[in-house]
Every structure is written in structure tokens, then in C-alpha cells.
């Protein structure tokens, strides 16, 4: 019985890696986006597994729901015939693979020496009692109010940027 959480975690962790690989290796962008949908659901399950139900719900609603649909629209508007013939990777991918492998090996080696930091105020017990959404809301609007406000400006820039780069006239008179 005590093995069950580990098994769940093992499944989700390995599924996320496999799904990410599928996303970046598919030639057909529509297939990539579909695998990504599945990937987002697995990530959401991972959050659920960590007692973070609010983040899990947001993951599904925002990422799987809104952002991915947008991706699909964009992909469908592209000229797929050309896209299907293009190579998925540029010529220097072995160099990239080498660097990633080096980072992976050094991370794996350093992992032995990882010492987890002190536990904070928000124990699983407390979160289950107060509910995750409420705890998150309280922290976000008190302790993290300042970063939260900056994040709103970052989103505003995204909106302005989209209008400037896509909607504005090319040239002024």
C-alpha cells in the first residue's frame, strides 16, 4: 500500500518525459499539439498528486483549455504542406544533445548531495484543513502582493506587444 504513491509518481514522471519527447519530435504540428494536450493533463495530475488542486484546475482550464486551443488555431492557419517537409531539427542538434546530456549527468551526480531546505509554515495538514485555494489566495495577496502586481504589468506588455506586432499598420504615413 505504501508503494502506491511512488508508483503513481513514477508513472506520471516518466509519462511527462516521454510525452515531451513526442511533442518535439513529431513532424506534423497538429500531432505535436495533441501530444502536448496529453502532457498538460499529466502535469495537472502531478499537481493534484501534490495536494495542489487549485493549480491543477488552472493547469487544465488555462493551459489545456485556452492556450492549447489557441495553438491549434495557429497551427491550423499555417501552411501544413510546407511545414511537413521541413526538418524537425537543425543540423547542430548533436551539439545540443551533448550539452543536454552533460547537464543531465552533472545534475544526476549532484542530486546525491541535495539537502532539502527547512520546511515552511504550510504543511500538508494545514493546507488540507484550510483548503489550497484559500491558502494560495491569502499568500498571493499579502506576502507576494508586490510580485503579483508586477506580473500584471508583464501581462499588459504581452497585450500591447500583440497589438503592436500584429495589428498595427506596417508603416506610419
Amino acid at each position, binding site marked *: 500500500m505504501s508503494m502506491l504513491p511512488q508508483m503513481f509518481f513514477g508513472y506520471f514522471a516518466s509519462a511527462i518525459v516521454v510525452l515531451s519527447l513526442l511533442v518535439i519530435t513529431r513532424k506534423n504540428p497538429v500531432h505535436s499539439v495533441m501530444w502536448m494536450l496529453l502532457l498538460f493533463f499529466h502535469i495537472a495530475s502531478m499537481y493534484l498528486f501534490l495536494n495542489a488542486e487549485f493549480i491543477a484546475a488552472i493547469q487544465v482550464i488555462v493551459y489545456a483549455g485556452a492556450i492549447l486551443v489557441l495553438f491549434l488555431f495557429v497551427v491550423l492557419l499555417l501552411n501544413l504542406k510546407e511545414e511537413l517537409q521541413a526538418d524537425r531539427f537543425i543540423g547542430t542538434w548533436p551539439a545540443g544533445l551533448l550539452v543536454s546530456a552533460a547537464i543531465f549527468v552533472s545534475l544526476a551526480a549532484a542530486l546525491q548531495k541535495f*539537502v532539502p531546505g527547512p520546511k515552511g509554515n504550510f504543511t500538508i495538514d494545514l493546507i488540507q484543513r484550510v483548503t489550497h485555494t484559500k491558502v494560495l489566495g491569502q499568500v498571493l495577496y499579502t506576502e507576494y*502582493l508586490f510580485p503579483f502586481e508586477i506580473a500584471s504589468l*508583464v501581462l499588459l*506588455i504581452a497585450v*500591447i506587444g500583440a497589438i503592436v506586432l500584429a495589428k498595427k499598420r506596417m508603416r506610419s504615413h
Partner: protein
Amino acid sequence: MQLMMPNLQPVMPEITMTVLALLVLVADLVIKRKETIGLLSIITAAIVAYFLTTAKGTAFNGMFLSDGYSIFFKLIFLMNLILTVLISVKYLSVERVNFGEYYSLILFSTLGMMVMASAGDLIVLYLGLELMALSTYILAGFLRYDMKSNEAALKYFLLGAFASAFLLYGTALVYGMTGTTDLKEIAGYIALNGLAQNPMLILAMIFVAVAFSFKIAAVPFHMWAPDAYEGAPTSITAYMSVGPKAAGFAVIGRVFLVAFGGMKVEWSAVLIPIAILTMGLGNIVAISQTNIKRMLAYSSIAHAGYALLGIIAGTPDGLASVMVYMLVYAFMNIGAFAVIIMLRSGDFKGDSLSDYEGLAKTHPLAAGLMLVFMFSLTGIPPTAGFMGKFYLFMSAIQAGYTWVVLIAVIFSAISAYFYLRVVMLMYMKEPKETVALSSSPAIGLALAVALVGVLAIGVVPSFFVNFAKAAVAGF
């Protein structure tokens, strides 16, 4: 639950900047003459600078630190903002992209830099960095009809996103090991638990160093810079070669000297090779460039290498010399770009080195100004560039890094070749064609400010250095 109003006094400059930037954004709807919007953004910068004088203190439980260090950097950002707006006004109509959003994006980008300089917490630092970077990506692609500008924005965006991922990975690892994102608490926890030699923490530090190296365009994370600098609108090239770089150094100083203060041996082993590679590649590759914007991009890479010496020194003097250098760099680099912008008119691009042949005969004043800025970039006295480098190298020697300084001096001598070649082309060649200068009062003012800055810091450097040293005192 009791509601407590946080002490907003230290954040007033940022709040003012946000409100005024939003007003500038809305004003664009009603004001038809976009030059007025440019004027409004300069007024905004002046008002924010006024609020900086009363902004000392900390806010939001140490997440936001408004100390002398951050205020000095904020003054550099505001100076950068004002000079950029001054050189943009005419240029935008020459390029026919006279849109008001340009100015509000510059304001928001500067706001992001100000948040970065004041960040006492890794989360605030990251968000400030994103605010700065996102605005700059858009500005780099502002010439929508120009493929090169599109390329610049896309390359800058992709590699910037990549750097952000590194920063977040490093931050997550640090948080996992110390249980906090507050810079001072991280330092305390590392010291208390003797984690300085922990391989995982060293790896986290390297990730953070990689992310910041992307931002300051240090080798081997510089690949985006030449293409982004060449393709972006010239005014934005000037802006992003100074602002984001200075902001990058502000956070490097804070993160490495405060949060990773106990890991000096480890991080200097990472930063010294980066600094040497940066100076070497920047200066050597700049020699073979034929496009002046590209040449200045490599020069900008090289200057990041010099400035890293002050960080490597790891002393208050070193930090002060980095701050002075960033100020010097702002004046001399924007000055040089202002001259490049003046050469752009109608169908004439004016960004090729051969366009400068015989400039001294056709436009002696512009050539004279370019001469001063090129001398300063090389580091020839009595210009500010010499004094900036002098203090940087001195602080590194005092900290015991004489051999690194020796290498820096050699590369600095190499750099004379490509800077002085511009001077040689201007003064010793015959003009091929007469080009009209697209000058304006605004760009004249920018050139005057840059010239005064370069000469003043060159002649009375002690005033600025003492100012920076006093600013660092409360670090």
C-alpha cells in the same frame, strides 16, 4: 483579519513610473503628434528621478530594496531612457514607424530594469527581468516591414526565453535547498549550514550565472547579440546595448555578492573564464565586421567582459567601478549610436563602415563627435572610457587578479584597431558621396549630453567615483 498598509515610500518611483507610463499609453490615443509623446516620456523620467531622491528604504518585507546601489543604477536607466527618446524622435519618422506605443514600451522596459535593480528577492528579480525583456523583444521587432528586424526580435525572444528557463531552474534549486527566495536569507542559510561547497548549490549558481550571462551578452551566451543589434531599429540597439546590460550587472552584483556571497571562490572560477572569453571574442571578431551596428554589437560584448572584472574583484570598490563604467558606457555608446542614426536618411541606410569614408570633409561636426566617442570606447584619455577602465582594472588588481587585468589590457589594445579604423575612414579617406544628415534639435541635445558626460567623467572622474562609492556604502 487586519489590513495593514505597506510602507510605499521606497516604491514611489516605480509606482509613479507605472501610472505615468499608463497615461502615456492612453495619451497616444488622443495625441496625433507623436513627438509630443516623446516629450511626455522625458517628463515622466524627470518626475521619476525626482521621486528617487526620497525613496530610500525597504518595502514588502525586504522584497524591494531602495538603497544607494539601486538608486545609482536607476539614474543610469533613466539617463538611458531620456537619451534613447531624444535620438528616437526624428529616427522613427525617417523609418516611418512613428507609433506612440514605442515610448510606452520603453517606459515599461525601464520600469522592469528599476524593479531588477531593487530586487531583494529572486521572484521579484525574475518578474522585473521579464518585464524588461518582453518590452525589449517587441521594440527590437518594431520595424515590422523589415525582415532583419523580425529576425532580431525572434532571436532575442527565443534565446531570452531560454535564459529565463535557466534562471528559473537555478532559482528553484536554490529555493529547494534553502527554503527561501530572499537574497539575504539565502546567504544566511548557506553560511549557517556550510552549503557553500555543495555540488547542487554550485550547479544552481552556475545556472543563474548562465542566465545573467545571456542578459549581458557574455561569451559563450552572446550568439543572439550581433543579429539582434544589427536588425533592431538603431535607437533600440542603443537602448538595449546599455539598459538591459546595466540591469544585468545590477542583479549580478546583488545576487553574487549578497546571496552567493559565501561562494566567492566558486563563482569567480565561473566568471573569470567567461570574462576572458567575452573580452577576447568580442574584440577579435569586431575587427572583421563591415557593418557598424554589428561592430558595436561585438564591442558591446567586449565591454561586458571588462565590466565583469569589477564583479570578479568582489569588493565595494569593484562594484562602484562597475557602476561608474555602466554610466560611462551609457554616454559613449548612445553618443556613437546617435551619430549612426543621423546618417540614416531617406533610402540611405548609413550603417556600413564604408559610409563613414570622408565624413570629416562633408560633416566635420558629426565626425568630430564620432571621434570623441570612438576614443572613449577605446579608452584613450582624457575621455570617460579611459577613466572607467582605469578604475575597473585598479579594483581588480587590488583584489589580486593582476593576470586577468593583464589579459584585459591586451584585448583593450586590440580593440583600438577597429575603433580607430572608423576615425581613420572619417578623416583620411575622400568622401564617395555627399549624404544629408537627418539631424534635429532633439538628437543635437542627446549628442551634447553624451559629449558632456564623456568629457566630464573623463576630466573629473573622482566626483562620479566618490558618488558611486557612497552609493555602495549601504549595500
